[in-house]
C-alpha cells in the first residue's frame, strides 16, 4: 500500500470546502490516496477521507516565518511533518505560499547543497512539453549562485518529470546579448555559461515566455511571479475578449460555434485549474503549492502533480545534481 499525500485542508481562499471536494475527486477519479490535515470542528464533512487532526490554521496574511514557529499545530506544519516522518509521500497546500515554503524548509528540510528551494511553474507549450519557469515566487531576493541552482534544479525536474533528455535553459532578461540586464542577470549569465551539465542557450526575453523556445526559464522569484501573473492576466483578458466577441450578433455566434471545438482544448491547456500546482524544488521530499484561489479541480490536479512527482523520482534526480552518485 502506497503512502498517502498529505493535503492541507485549511489552506486556500475556498478552504475547506473546495479542498475537501478536490481531494475526494483525486481519490475517485485518479486513484490517489489522500490524507486531510485539518481542524475537525471547521473541516465539515471529510467525505469519507482520513483526517489528521490539528488545532490551528495559518492565515493567508500571516507572517511566513513567525507563523510557522508560533503555530506548530497548524494544518500546514502538520502536513509537512507527515512528509518528514515518512507518514506521507508528499504534501500539497493552497495556503500561504511563504509559510508553505518556510514549513517545508524547516520540517522536510533542504537537499544538502541547496541554498533555497524554488517554485517551478510549468507554462504550457501547445504540442510539446511545458516550459518551466523558476523561480516563480519563493525567493524575492536572489544571488547569481541561487539562480544557477534554480536552473540546475529545474533542468533536472524537466528531465525526470517530462523525460526531456537535455532541457534547454534560458535566462530571463531584457535583451539577448549577455551585456543586457541588471547586475544580477549579467553575473548569472556568466556563471550559467560556465556551469557544466547545463544546456544554457543564453538570454530570453519576456516575449519568449509564451510559447517558449526553451524548456527552462530562470529568473528571481520577484520577477518570475510578476511574469507569471502578467501572463495569467493577459491570457484571461484575451480569451474573455474573444468569447465576448463571438457573442455579439448572429454572424459572430455562428463563427463561435464553428470555432468552439478548436478553441476548447486550447483554452483548457491554459486554464490554471488544469495545471493544479507547482512543485517546490530543492526539498528532501515533495511539496506542491497550489494557487490560493484553487477550486476542487485545481486541488485534484495539484494532488496529481504531487503523485507524479513522487512516481517520477524527481527528488532523487535533484539529489544527484548536488551530490553526484548519491541519487537514483
Amino acid at each position, binding site marked *: 500500500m502506497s503512502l498517502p499525500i498529505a493535503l492541507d485542508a485549511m489552506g486556500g481562499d475556498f478552504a475547506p470546502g473546495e479542498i475537501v471536494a478536490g481531494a475526494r475527486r483525486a481519490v475517485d477519479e485518479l486513484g490517489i490516496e489522500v490524507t486531510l490535515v485539518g481542524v475537525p470542528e471547521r473541516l465539515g464533512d471529510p467525505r469519507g477521507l482520513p483526517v489528521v487532526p490539528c488545532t490551528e490554521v495559518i492565515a493567508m496574511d500571516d507572517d511566513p*516565518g*513567525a507563523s*510557522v*514557529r*508560533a503555530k506548530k499545530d497548524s494544518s500546514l506544519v502538520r502536513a509537512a511533518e507527515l512528509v518528514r516522518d515518512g507518514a506521507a509521500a508528499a504534501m500539497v497546500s493552497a495556503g500561504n505560499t511563504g509559510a508553505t515554503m*518556510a514549513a517545508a524548509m*524547516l520540517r522536510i528540510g533542504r537537499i*544538502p547543497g541547496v541554498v*533555497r528551494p524554488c517554485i517551478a511553474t510549468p507554462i504550457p507549450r501547445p504540442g510539446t512539453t511545458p516550459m518551466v519557469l523558476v523561480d516563480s515566487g519563493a525567493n524575492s*531576493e536572489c544571488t547569481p549562485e541561487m539562480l544557477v541552482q534554480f536552473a540546475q534544479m529545474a533542468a533536472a525536474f524537466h528531465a525526470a518529470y517530462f523525460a526531456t533528455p537535455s532541457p534547454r535553459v534560458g535566462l530571463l532578461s531584457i535583451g539577448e546579448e549577455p551585456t543586457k540586464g541588471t547586475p544580477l542577470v549579467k553575473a548569472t549569465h556568466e556563471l550559467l555559461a560556465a556551469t557544466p551539465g547545463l544546456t544554457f542557450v543564453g538570454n530570453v526575453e519576456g516575449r519568449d515566455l509564451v510559447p517558449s523556445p526553451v524548456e527552462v526559464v530562470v529568473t528571481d522569484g520577484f520577477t518570475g511571479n510578476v511574469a507569471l501573473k502578467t501572463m495569467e492576466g493577459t491570457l484571461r483578458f484575451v480569451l474573455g475578449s474573444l468569447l465576448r466577441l463571438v457573442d455579439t450578433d448572429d454572424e459572430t455566434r455562428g463563427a463561435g460555434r464553428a470555432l468552439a471545438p478548436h478553441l476548447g482544448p486550447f483554452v483548457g491547456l491554459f486554464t490554471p485549474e488544469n495545471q493544479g500546482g507547482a512543485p517546490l524544488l530543492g526539498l528532501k521530499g515533495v511539496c506542491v503549492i497550489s494557487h490560493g484561489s484553487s477550486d476542487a479541480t485545481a486541488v485534484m490536479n495539484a494532488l496529481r502533480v504531487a503523485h507524479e512527482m513522487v512516481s517520477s523520482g524527481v527528488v532523487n534526480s535533484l539529489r544527484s545534481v548536488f551530490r553526484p552518485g548519491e541519487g537514483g
Partner: protein
Amino acid sequence: MSADPATPLDRAAVATLVRGQLAEILEKSPADISDVAPFAELGADSLALIELVEALEERLDDYVAGFHIDDAALEGLHTVNDAVDYVAAKLHLA
C-alpha cells in the same frame, strides 16, 4: 553539531553550539563563521535565522526543557555574539 548534555554548559560551549549550527545551515566550516560579522554578511537571511533558532531550541531543550527563543528577540540578534549573549543570559550562564 550537538551539545552534550553530560557536559556542563557555559558561554564557550554555547558559542561553539551557535557557530556549529549556523555553519551546518549555511554549509560552511565553523571556522568560517565570524562571531562579530552581521548574519547577512555570512549569507544568513531571515529563513536561515529561523532555521538557526529552531535548531538551537532543539539542542538546548536537553539542558532546559522547553527552552524557547522569543520571536521578538530575533530582531535584536545580528551576529553570533548577539545570539550567544541572548542564550547565555536566558540560561543565567557566566
